[in-house]
């Protein structure tokens, strides 16, 4: 099958520091792909490259057959790329409900509307999504008052609002209990499969990775160290040495 995303010789430098050296790989449609590696490996940088949120990226990023590297992030969101952030970036001074409503309003392109009907037409879906991510009873709370785990859940729901074909989750379970992690990621996996999405997620919890990912890429210091099925990765000596053996910061 033609890959939905293929990175070709992606290189990104922050000044003199090279954060991504020469990253190339394909992601087939429908895959659940984990991106792992020690701190500073370049995982978040790579996610930002795909989402079009970094200047000065070299190489080619082919999404659905088109090089997207020079496109602005808002265009990429319209083309079907949705993301969450490692450090939650839900709108801090809005309520949970307003955040989710904003996501739905923007996803539908009605951002410039002056009519309350735009709200009314979406309130059911907003409510349903908040139910899905377990935040319905916190709808009125301001994001600044939420726990980190709840903010992550909100972020995830907001990313789903546009129904993206490619979902990028940067450490979606950071700040959650082990039980919560598995619960959320199982829901993510289910949803991704049910709606035919492709998932790339960064995750430090190796148990979650083993359970959710169909394929894993291990990054170290801006380069790909290994790639394969979760089982292959677990058995890989080099990975053991660099990552799994040495704990995961």
């Amino acid at each position, binding site marked *: 099958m033609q890959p939905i995303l293929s990175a070709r010789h992606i290189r990104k430098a922050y000044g003199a520091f090279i954060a991504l050296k020469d990253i190339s790989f394909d992601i087939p449609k429908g895959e659940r792909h984990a991106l792992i590696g020690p701190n500073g490996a370049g995982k978040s940088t790579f996610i930002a490259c795909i989402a079009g949120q970094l200047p000065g990226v070299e190489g080619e990023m082919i999404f659905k057959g088109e090089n997207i590297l020079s496109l602005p992030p808002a265009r990429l969101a319209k083309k079907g790329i949705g993301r969450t952030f490692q450090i939650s970036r839900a709108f801090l001074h809005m*309520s949970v409900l307003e955040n989710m409503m904003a996501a739905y*309003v923007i996803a539908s392109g009605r951002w410039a509307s002056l009519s309350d009907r735009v709200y009314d037409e979406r309130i059911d879906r907003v409510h349903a999504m908040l139910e899905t991510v377990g935040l319905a009873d916190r709808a009125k709370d301001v994001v600044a008052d939420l726990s980190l785990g709840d903010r992550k859940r909100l972020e995830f729901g907001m990313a789903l609002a546009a129904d993206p074909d490619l979902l990028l989750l940067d450490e979606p379970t950071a700040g959650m209990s082990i039980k919560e992690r598995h619960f959320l990621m199982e829901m993510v996996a289910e949803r991704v499969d049910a709606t035919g999405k492709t998932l790339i997620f960064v995750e430090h919890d190796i148990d979650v990775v083993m359970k959710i990912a169909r394929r894993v890429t291990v990054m170290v210091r801006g380069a790909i160290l290994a790639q394969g099925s979760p089982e292959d990765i677990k058995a890989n000596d080099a990975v053991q040495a660099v990552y799994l053996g040495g704990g995961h910061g």
Partner: protein
Amino acid sequence: MTGQDLKTWRAKVARATVSWRFVVPALAVVLAINWMASTSTSTMMTEIMIMALFASSLNLLMSFGHMVSFGHAAYFGLGAYGFTLAVVRGGVPPELALAVGPLVAALGGLVFGALCVRLTQIYFAMLTLACAQITYTVLFQWYDFTGGDTGITGFMIPRFGLSEKGYATAVLAVVTLCLLALWGIVKSPLGLSIRAVGQDRYRAEALGLGARRVQLVAFVIAAFFAGVAGTLYSVLHGAAFPDYAGLGITLDGLIMVVIGGLNSFAGGIWGAIIYELLATFVSKVIHEWELVLGLILLAICLAAPAGFAGVSARLRAMLGGIR
């Protein structure tokens, strides 16, 4: 979801409900004062109302779009000159020219805004300042067209010949409508988008929002309402001067928003009332009124960054707790 659930959910969305319980008494108070007070008080009230609209238009940018403009007076001035020049140079009947002022301001906002939103934060602020200085200089220097530093006077009977009280009532009506419109915008999906970009443009873009476009729309709206204020001001005095677009008015607006309360819609209104009253009465008692103003600003920035609106919200919460 049941019908009842849906209703409570709808009520939670940020829609523009107007609490007439506050608006109607406020309007009644203004009308009553206007009715009883001297003509000079009526004129002062008119100026306060005009500045409340101007500060509120700036507040749309500052509190909701998180865009700090150092050049908002440009659109006040463009409103005033748009109106005045339409009458003087264009031969447009003054009643019709009333609409020209705000439109010229909005057009100016579109041109300058398109330039300014290319940058963010302090660079954005510097561009707005540059655009305002350009506007001011043109109004100041282009004698043949704008009358230069002497401005334009004597082209109409001030206030269309209305009495001070009559004009105050008319301004009250226009300003109330404009503030309701601004409130509706803040609470609309567009307002939600403006707030989203203001709070985190990076996040908003990842959701599919073109941040610059949203900011430009906010800028044009703010310019339009600043233009309405400028037009009303020009009618009040039957004149237009380059200072209307000058740094002084810009600073007045910024100070009003800070005194009144950032991140609150009412901030611009409270700020205009407090600032104008202080300027009028304190300056009569103490010669160095700027010193008093400086101290007040210091106190607000250090102790009550949410301004008057923040303090009154806290008081209400406290009182509510006691009851």
